[in-house]
């Protein structure tokens, strides 16, 4: 309890920020490997379609459902071939881009809109503060499947429109989180101090409230990222999601589903990619939560000391 105050005044040798970051990351091995995996995913997001688009798309009907771990056909066939004779490894790597774009785009958009609305709702004591949460209620009870059908009927089924669908459905999450946080933050003493100093509403929101809100929103966003990825694959399963020739992991899993008993690898690898990505995100978000929380942080630091 009172010990912490004592400690915080002790001068510490300044470790580089990056080095601290890595030692904190290394101290949670789960999170470390999660980070490594996410970097791999990110690499394939950036370079996958650039390098492998042709291989991933080239079909060969007579060589379909090639079994995995066959070393004679080169590394690209290591994970086997799909139902149209395309190398699965290349497809998984290429599909990373759309998958991450869909999830990332939806999360980004819903986070932006949701938190803007939530911040407005949290800051206004009048009608608006009452009205905005109702929007969240309505969106939450509006079935996402119907929304998907409406949007995709009026627009075209494409990656960007799927993003719109998923983004709309996720707005309430951020709206509610942001509003609840703001309601709490606005009672904090340093907000009052800023008011006393004459800070404008704008300044209070962006300079004082947002930095407090952001970590919470980011934690929610990481978890939501996983959720959106799974939701996208569910939409594909129901036939109203992304459609070929676009590919995502979710689509690959749902397309491979009929072959589950005859060629398990079709849905297994992309499924594994989804699991690993969501798992990594969850682990990383756990780690971030601990690393950002001064009351929890020591757990990591003790570990990192041990490892030094």
């Amino acid at each position, binding site marked *: 309890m009172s010990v912490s105050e004592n400690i915080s005044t002790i001068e510490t040798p300044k470790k580089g920020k990056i080095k601290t970051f890595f030692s904190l990351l290394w101290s949670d091995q789960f999170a470390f490997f999660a980070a490594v995996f996410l970097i791999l995913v990110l690499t394939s997001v950036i370079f996958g379609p650039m390098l492998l688009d042709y291989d991933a798309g080239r079909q060969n009907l007579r060589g379909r459902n090639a079994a995995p771990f066959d070393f004679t056909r080169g590394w690209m066939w290591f994970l086997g071939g799909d139902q149209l004779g395309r190398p699965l490894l290349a497809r998984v790597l290429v599909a990373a881009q759309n998958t991450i774009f869909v999830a990332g785009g939806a999360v980004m958009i819903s986070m932006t809109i949701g938190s803007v609305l939530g911040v407005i709702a949290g800051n206004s004591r009048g009608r608006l503060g009452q009205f905005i949460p*109702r929007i969240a209620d309505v969106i939450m009870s509006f079935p996402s499947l119907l929304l998907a059908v409406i949007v995709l009927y009026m627009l075209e089924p494409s990656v960007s429109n799927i993003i719109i669908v998923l983004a709309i459905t996720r707005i309430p999450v951020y709206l509610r989180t942001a509003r609840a946080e703001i309601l709490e933050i606005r009672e904090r003493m340093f907000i009052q101090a800023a008011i006393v100093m004459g800070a404008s509403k704008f300044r209070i929101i962006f300079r004082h409230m947002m930095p407090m809100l952001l970590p919470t929103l980011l934690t929610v966003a990481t978890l939501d990222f996983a959720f959106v990825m799974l939701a996208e694959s569910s939409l594909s399963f129901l036939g109203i999601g992304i459609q070929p020739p676009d590919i995502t992991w979710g689509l690959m899993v749902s397309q491979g589903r009929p072959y589950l008993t005859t060629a398990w690898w079709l849905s297994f690898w992309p499924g594994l990619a989804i699991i690993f990505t969501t798992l990594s995100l969850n682990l990383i978000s756990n780690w971030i939560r601990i690393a950002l929380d001064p009351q929890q942080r020591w757990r990591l630091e003790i570990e990192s000391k041990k490892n030094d």
Partner: protein
Amino acid sequence: MNKFILKRALASLVSLLFLVVAVFFLSRLTGDPTDLYLPVDASLASREQFRKIHGLDQPLMVQFFNYVRDLAVLDFGESIRRARPALDVVLEAFKWTLQLALITLFLVTLAAIIFGSLAAFRVGGMFDRFATFFSLIGASAPDFWLAIVAIVVFSVGLGWVPTSGTGTMMHWILPVTILFIRPFGLILQVVRSSMITALSAAYIKTARAKGAKAKSIIFIHALRNALLPIITVIGDQAAGMLNGAVIVETIFGFPGVGKLMIDSILQRDFSVVLASIMVTAFVIFLMNILIDLLYAVLDPRIRY
């Protein structure tokens, strides 16, 4: 208290009306059921006859006012597909969804609270790490994939449980298990973090100074304080389940409202879509009010 309930009910009613208007007009943007319902080579005459029978030939506003007028006497219209009152169709399906949701939520809550609390008691311990890790893996897998693998393994391979359908208690095991996994992971995480907060609260120190046993510290002193966020997240999950577990219902042939809704959407059976949204939204709003009341029961500091 009564004033609070009234206010909440009124707000919910407004939301519900909003929803009806939005769904009514938006769903009609997705096309005409006539083409879907009749064979592709049906004549123009039979198309027109169909539209007339179902009132689709009238201007949209007239359709809407007719709908609202009927709704005022709780007539939700008739299902085009099933030639029955839409409400009957929905309630029949909702019964299944409700059972499935209640059983699953009961088990999830029980399990998540027990495992989450134990994980929180020794943060970073072996139990904590494993509980977290496995709950995350389960929650990260696409559920349709898990469902089919489960059928292949447990029904076809091992023959322990029937593949699908309803009927005996055994039939419920697989769908409930699959439905269990994702909310379990999520609620477990919330229980864990909420319990960590509660267990580090000052009153826990008092309880320890009193000599209270570990079990009583966890489940009596900390748990009740930690319940509020847990109930919130359970409420969210329940809302999701009440909207229908589409995937599980589809794969396991469970005649729930989720499958009904997706089918009706794809078939443009508007009155069923509207009725199912209204029924589920009504129940969800009701549940939210109950949750707010439950807050006040659990935490005496909350008064409305």
